[in-house]
């Protein structure tokens, strides 16, 4: 985790209030390598001197718009970019993400949300996983990394699809995940018609992870919607 906090972050916004506040928020969360710029030219200069790990760009800058700055930055760096903007229209959002930005945050924002999203982007891009890989269900332990289940002292391997489905449910634990999202994760974009196959895979998962597969306690069906992995707080 400390590795993440060492990363250099560049904030570009023409409002000094915002840059000050943002660096304050980031500093309070443990990030200390923070650079700020008030226009595109300064931003490019800093980007040339420092090895920036994450850019936070305002869309409205005095000398250029954030999208052009994004493209200029992309020429020298593959570092992730988060757009921070006062423009809330869907079109801008699509344009930002369409260019290949990693996230898009509309002002005003809550500090917690911003930090969460910045951390998420950093984790994703710099592949720092601190995902808990052992899930303990009542009487059964699932080792996601090893893709296996320990039930009654016996090791049962998970198939590739079962692993994907369980991982997806685990990432959204205690929340309903729609059948569409599960199918999309397991079979990709053209998943139509896999609903029945999904049911079969869920049944097998229950047989491996539930003590009483016919009365599941953890992989719960949300009728007409999807499934939910119920895990009580430890």
């Amino acid at each position, binding site marked *: 985790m400390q590795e993440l906090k060492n990363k250099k972050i560049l904030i570009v916004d023409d409002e000094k209030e915002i840059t000050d506040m943002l660096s304050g928020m980031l500093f309070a969360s443990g990030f200390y390598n923070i650079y700020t710029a008030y226009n595109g030219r300064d931003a490019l200069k800093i980007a040339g001197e420092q090895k920036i790990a994450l850019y936070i760009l305002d869309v409205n800058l005095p000398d250029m718009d954030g999208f052009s700055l994004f493209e200029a930055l992309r020429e020298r760096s593959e570092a992730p970019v988060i757009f921070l903007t006062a423009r809330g229209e869907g079109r801008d959002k699509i344009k930002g993400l369409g260019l290949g930005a990693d996230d898009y945050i509309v002002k005003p924002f809550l*500090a917690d949300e911003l930090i969460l999203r910045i951390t998420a982007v950093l984790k994703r891009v710099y592949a720092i996983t601190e995902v808990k890989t052992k899930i303990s269900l009542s009487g059964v332990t699932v080792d996601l990394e090893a893709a296996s289940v320990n039930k009654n002292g016996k090791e049962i391997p998970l198939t590739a699809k079962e692993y994907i489905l369980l991982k997806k449910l685990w990432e959204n634990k205690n929340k309903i995940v729609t059948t569409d999202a599960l199918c999309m994760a397991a079979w990709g974009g053209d998943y139509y018609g896999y609903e029945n196959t999904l049911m079969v895979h869920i049944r097998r998962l229950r047989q491996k992870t539930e003590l009483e597969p016919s009365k599941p306690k953890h992989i719960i069906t949300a009728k007409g919607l999807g499934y939910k992995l119920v895990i009580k707080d430890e």
Partner: protein
Amino acid sequence: MNNTSIKIFIYFTLVSTVIAVILLFINFMGYAYIESDTDGEKLPRKTLALISEKLIETDSGFELNEDVLPSGYWCILIDENGNIVWSQNKPDDIPESYSLNDIARMTRWFLNDYPVYVRTEDYGLLVVGMPKNAVGKYHMVYSEKWFDTLPQRIISILFINLCFAAVLAFLFGIKLYRRLRTLTNGISDLRYERPVRLKERGIFKEISANINKTSEAMERKNEKLSARDNARANWIAGISHDIRTPLSVIIGKSEEISHSDSLDEGAKKKAMVITAQGMKIKKLIEDMNLISSLEYDMQPSDKKAIKICPLLRQTVTDIINSGIADNCDIELELKDEKSTVTADEALIERAIYNIINNSIQHNKDGCKINITQRTKDKATVLEIADNGRGIPEETIKNIAQMPCSAHGMGLPMAYRIIKAHGGNFEITNDNGAKIRIELY
């Protein structure tokens, strides 16, 4: 070929066939009139009959007791031996006796260039002659077969007429149809307020000119209207943009204060209230922007084909996962998994969210919400019904109006979103609220 062109084609074919048949009839009558010649054959035949009636055989020969010959006519009577036994006004170049060959040659035709008509009597052959060049004589022979096949040939002539008429109708009809089509296209473009520039020539010159003028007038009007609307929408967008930055600072700072260690709990609580209220303002700005863009742009910007069932599941799941629906029991009944609608996904999701959220917020004690989806003709029909308190009549009546405050904006916004997509939106109270949406 569409309906209009078929109609024009049939109309033209019928008209030209009827005209052809009438012309044929008139021409036939005219032909018959021209052909009929009272002087040609009737007079000599009548004269012959008169002579045969008035000619008296006496001992000394034959005698005509009345002068029945018209001027220029002459008459002879030839006996069995081929000799003339009686004559009147006989020109000099008519021979006195005739061989069998002579008789045969002249019977139907001419005798020394005199047109002659003959009549056989018991006592000989009566010959009436007309002056030279008085008539022409033509021989007509028709076979039995000709008479037998006459109806078929008349029918085939009529059929040829019909075909000809059809070809003509096709050629003229296509021309007319093309002109009419540019006109009708122009008018339908007018209806959808698209600019129209028709060529002003031909028989429809005046109509085309009028359509063009109407289009220009409409464009001018629309330009003014949209300029005004754009100004208003841009103003709202600008204002909300300007509010966002200071609001970010307010929220950020108040959050900072609420986390500060040097302050007492009461002050921290107050700072948290400021943060929460700031977020409320943020939501209001977003709603205002959405409403104003729906109001003035009308056309959702990001339309594509979306599958409605996954969207419904996702929206309901999001609502359940967020925990606001803990009191409610939401049930989905999706009949047609494959159905798609052309729409802006985010907007439709917003509309459905608003409707479900409305049911939840107005039935705090909990309710059952039933969502059904099916396909009817080409429309996707969604029904979102609850068994709660229902929707006040006042709200239903004013659904198309924007409320004066942000409170109660959910349903009018949903209504606007559906309408902006060209869909139908109906609210009824039937043991609770029931909202029916049709999308295409």
